[in-house]
C-alpha cells in the first residue's frame, strides 16, 4: 500500500495514519473489536458443548484421574498403624528398628485389633503386607492376636517369640515402605518386579511373574485379531462398495446385524456353536472328519476367545473400509487398466494405496477395542484365553486390590497411547477415515 492510500479515510469513519492500528467505527481498535465479536461466538459454541464437556469430565476424566491416583496412593499402612508409620521412617534400614519403634508397633497393633472400622483393621495391614511378601499374612494376624498381652519389654524379643520371621530385616523394610502413603509398589507388582530387602528393584520370583506375560499375550492376541479382521473385512468391504446399492444395503444389514444383538447373546451363541457337544463338533463327527471320542476343544481357551472376538469386532473393520472404498470411483482402476496395468498391478498401485486411510482407521479401532476387551474372554476364554482386562477386573472385583488393578489399568492406557502415538508417526492421524 502506498502512503496515499494509507492516509485515505476508509469509509469516512475509520482512519489510519502511519503505524497507528486500524480502528472500528466506534473508535475501539479493530483487533480488539474483532476479538470481542468472536468471543461471544466462541462462548456460544462452548455453551453448546457444555453438556458433553461436563459428562466427559464426570464420567471419564474424573474416574481416570482417580485410577491414576489410586495406583500411586495407598494409605492402608498409616491407617492401621499410624504412630508406627511415623516412627519407622526414622529407621536407617540397618539391622532392625529400635526397641522404641517396635514398642510403638506392638501398641498400634493392639489398638488396631480392637478397631472395627473398614480399612483400618489388622486384616487390611496383613493383606497389604502379603501383596509385597506373599505368605506373610499370618505373621501380622498372629502377632496382632497376642499383641495386647505384651505389656513390657523387651518388645523385640517378645515378637521373635511369637514368630521367628520378625528377625528378618525384609519384614521391617517392607513395613517401612508400606506405611508410606505414596508408593510405586503397585507398578512394580504390575510389571512383575519387587523391592528386595535393601529397597532396590528386582524381578519377582518366577512363580509370580504373570502380568508382563499376560500383557504381551494381550498385545499379540489383539494384533492377531486385528489381522484376521482385516483379512476377512477387506474383500467383504470391497464387494459391498462395488455392488449395486440395493444389494449392498442388504448385505450391509447383515454386517450390522451383530450390533443389534446383545453382546452376551452373541458370545453365548458361540458357546453353543463351539463347545465339545456343540454344533460345529457335531457336524464334524457327522461328516466323519473326527471321531466321537476326539471332539475338538474349540472354546474355553484362547482359540475360542479369538474366534468370538474376531466376529464381534468385524463390523468395526468393515465400516471404515467400506466408507473409504465407497468414495473411490471405479474410473481409477479403469484408468490404470487402460494404461496397460494388469488387474493385480492396478490394484496394488492404485486401489490399495487409496484405501490406506480406511485400513488405518479400522485396524486402530479394532486393536484398541481388542486390547481392552473384557466380556468375551471372560465368558469363552477359559484359563489360557484370559487377557489383561480380565485380571484387572479380578483385582477390582474379587481380590479387592484396587491399587494393583489401577496400576494395571494405567499401564494398559499407556500401552494404548503408545500404539496411538506410533500410529500417528506411521500413518498420520489426519489420514484416518472412520466414516
Amino acid at each position, binding site marked *: 500500500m502506498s502512503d496515499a492510500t494509507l492516509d485515505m479515510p476508509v469509509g469516512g469513519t475509520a482512519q489510519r495514519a502511519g503505524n497507528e492500528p486500524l480502528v472500528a467505527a466506534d473508535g475501539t481498535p479493530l483487533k480488539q473489536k474483532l476479538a470481542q465479536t468472536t468471543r461471544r461466538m466462541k462462548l456460544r459454541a462452548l455453551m453448546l458443548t457444555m453438556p458433553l464437556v461436563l459428562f466427559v469430565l464426570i464420567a471419564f476424566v474424573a474416574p481416570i484421574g482417580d485410577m491414576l491416583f489410586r495406583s500411586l496412593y495407598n494409605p492402608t499402612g498409616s491407617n492401621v498403624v499410624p504412630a508406627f508409620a511415623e516412627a519407622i521412617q526414622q529407621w536407617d534400614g540397618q539391622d532392625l528398628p529400635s526397641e522404641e519403634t517396635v514398642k510403638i508397633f506392638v501398641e498400634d497393633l493392639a489398638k488396631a485389633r480392637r478397631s472395627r472400622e473398614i480399612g483400618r483393621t489388622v486384616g487390611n495391614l496383613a493383606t497389604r503386607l502379603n501383596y509385597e511378601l506373599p505368605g506373610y499374612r499370618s505373621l501380622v494376624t498372629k502377632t496382632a492376636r497376642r499383641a495386647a498381652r505384651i505389656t513390657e519389654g523387651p518388645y523385640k524379643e517378645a515378637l521373635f517369640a511369637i514368630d521367628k520371621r520378625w528377625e528378618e530385616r525384609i519384614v521391617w523394610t517392607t513395613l517401612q515402605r508400606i506405611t508410606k502413603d505414596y508408593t510405586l509398589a503397585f507398578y512394580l507388582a504390575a510389571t512383575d518386579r519387587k523391592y528386595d530387602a535393601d529397597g532396590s528393584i528386582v524381578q519377582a520370583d518366577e512363580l509370580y511373574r504373570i502380568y508382563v506375560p499376560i500383557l504381551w499375550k494381550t498385545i499379540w492376541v489383539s494384533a492377531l485379531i486385528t489381522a484376521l479382521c482385516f483379512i476377512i473385512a477387506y474383500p467383504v468391504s470391497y464387494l459391498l462398495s462395488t455392488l449395486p446399492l440395493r444389494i449392498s444395503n442388504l448385505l450391509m444389514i447383515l454386517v450390522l446385524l451383530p450390533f443389534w444383538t446383545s453382546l452376551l447373546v452373541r458370545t453365548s451363541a458361540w458357546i453353543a456353536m463351539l463347545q465339545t457337544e456343540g454344533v460345529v463338533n457335531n457336524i464334524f463327527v457327522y461328516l466323519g472328519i473326527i471321531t466321537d471320542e476326539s471332539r475338538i476343544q474349540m472354546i474355553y481357551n484362547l482359540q475360542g476367545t479369538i474366534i468370538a472376538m474376531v466376529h464381534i469386532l468385524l463390523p468395526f473393520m468393515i465400516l471404515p473400509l467400506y466408507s473409504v472404498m465407497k468414495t473411490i470411483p471405479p474410473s481409477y482402476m*479403469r*484408468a490404470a487398466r487402460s*494404461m496397460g496395468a494388469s488387474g493385480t*498391478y492396478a490394484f496394488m498401485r492404485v486401489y490399495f494405496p*487409496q484405501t490406506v486411510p480406511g485400513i488405518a482407521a479400522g485396524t486402530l479401532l479394532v486393536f484398541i477395542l481388542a486390547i481392552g476387551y473384557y466380556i468375551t474372554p471372560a465368558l469363552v476364554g477359559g484359563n489360557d484365553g484370559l487377557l489383561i482386562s480380565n485380571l484387572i477386573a479380578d483385582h477390582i472385583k474379587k481380590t479387592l486390590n484396587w491399587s494393583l488393578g489401577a496400576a494395571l489399568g494405567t499401564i494398559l492406557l499407556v500401552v494404548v497411547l503408545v500404539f496411538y502415538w506410533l500410529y500417528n508417526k506411521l500413518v498420520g492421524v489426519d489420514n484416518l477415515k472412520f466414516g
Partner: protein
Amino acid sequence: MNKSASQSQARDDAFVRFENVQKSYDGEVLVVKDLNVDIAEGEFLTMLGPSGSGKTTSLMMLAGFEPATHGEIYLAGESINNVPPNKRGIGMVFQNYALFPHMTVAENLAFPLKVRRMGRADIEERVQRALDMVELPQMGGRRPAQLSGGQQQRVAVARALVFEPKLVLMDEPLGALDKQLREQMQYEIKHIHENLGVTVVYVTHDQTEALTMSDRVAVFEDGVIQQLSAPDELYERPQNSFVAQFIGENNKFDGTVSAISNDSCTVELNGGGTVQAARVGDLVGQGDRTTLSLRPERVEIAPKNGALPNVLTGEIIELIYLGDHIRTRMRVAGNEEFIVKVPNSADHVPLAEGAKVNVGWKTEDCRALDPL
C-alpha cells in the same frame, strides 16, 4: 482436416470398426442397438447425444471395460472382443480425470511407462515432454489436488497420450470446466490431435464442442446412431427431425406432403399455407405427414417480391437485441416459436413488435423430414 478422405474411407481399412454391436446391462433393455461405425486412422470422431443415449457404453465397450452383448469390435483389423483392456493399448481421458490422488503429476504420467518397464531416463524424458506438450512444464512435483480443474484436465490428456497410443478415448473430458476454459481446451485438444495424428473418439453432449472439434460426428439417440457425418453436413443437411432439433436452432412446421417431384415436394402446412421443401431421400412420400426443418439464419425478412419461392406472412411477437443480430420471434402459420435472426446491418428493415411482415426462404433450405 481432410474430411473428404475420412468420409470416403473404405470399410476394409477402417482403424476401428463396430460391427452389429449390441449391449444390454440387464437383459431387458438394449442400451446400444445394432451399432455400425467405421473410424479411420487419425480421425477425430465425436459421439454426441442426449443423456442416457449410450455414448459412454459404446466407449466402454471399445475400451474393454464392458463386454459387447452381441457383435464384434475391431481395432486395426483384429477383433478385440476377447482382449483385456490393458492389452488394447488405448489411451483414455475420463470425465472426472481419474488422476491418482496419491501420486504426483509426474508419477501419474510415469504410470503407463512404468507398467511398460521403460528405463528410468526414458521415462523422465517422456514425462517432461508430455508436460511441455500440455504447457505445464513446472508442475511435475505437485499432487493432482493442488492443480486447478483446467490443469488437472491437461494432465489427464497428457497421461492418456504419454505412452503414444494409436487411439485415445475421451468421455466428456471438458464437462467439469467453465465455458471459457472449455473453449480454450477444445482448441488445445484439437491442436494436439492434429500434431500427433492420433485417432480420437470423443464423447460429449455439447453440440458446439462436437461441431467445432470433430472430423465427423455420430449423433446418438436411444442406442442408435441417427446420423454420422461431418459437422457442416450435420448442420445443413440433417437426415431426420431428431438431428435437426438436436443440432443448432431449428424452426419447424408440421404438414402433409401433397405432391412430390425429384428433389422437392409440396407441403400443406397444418397452420395454413403451402410451401416447397427439399426432399431427403425417400423419407417422405405423397400423402405422408412431415415436419419441415428450417434454420433461423436462412430466413429472409421482407423479401423482394418474387425473389424467393416460399413466402408467408408473420407477426412479430418479441424482439431481442443481441448486438450483431436481432433475434425475432414471430407467429408464422400458427407456429409461435418461429425464430428469425436478422443481421444488424446498416440497412435492415425496421422491426416493431406487433408488426406484420413477410418471411421467405429458399426451397433447399427447408427440409421435409419425418414427422415428430
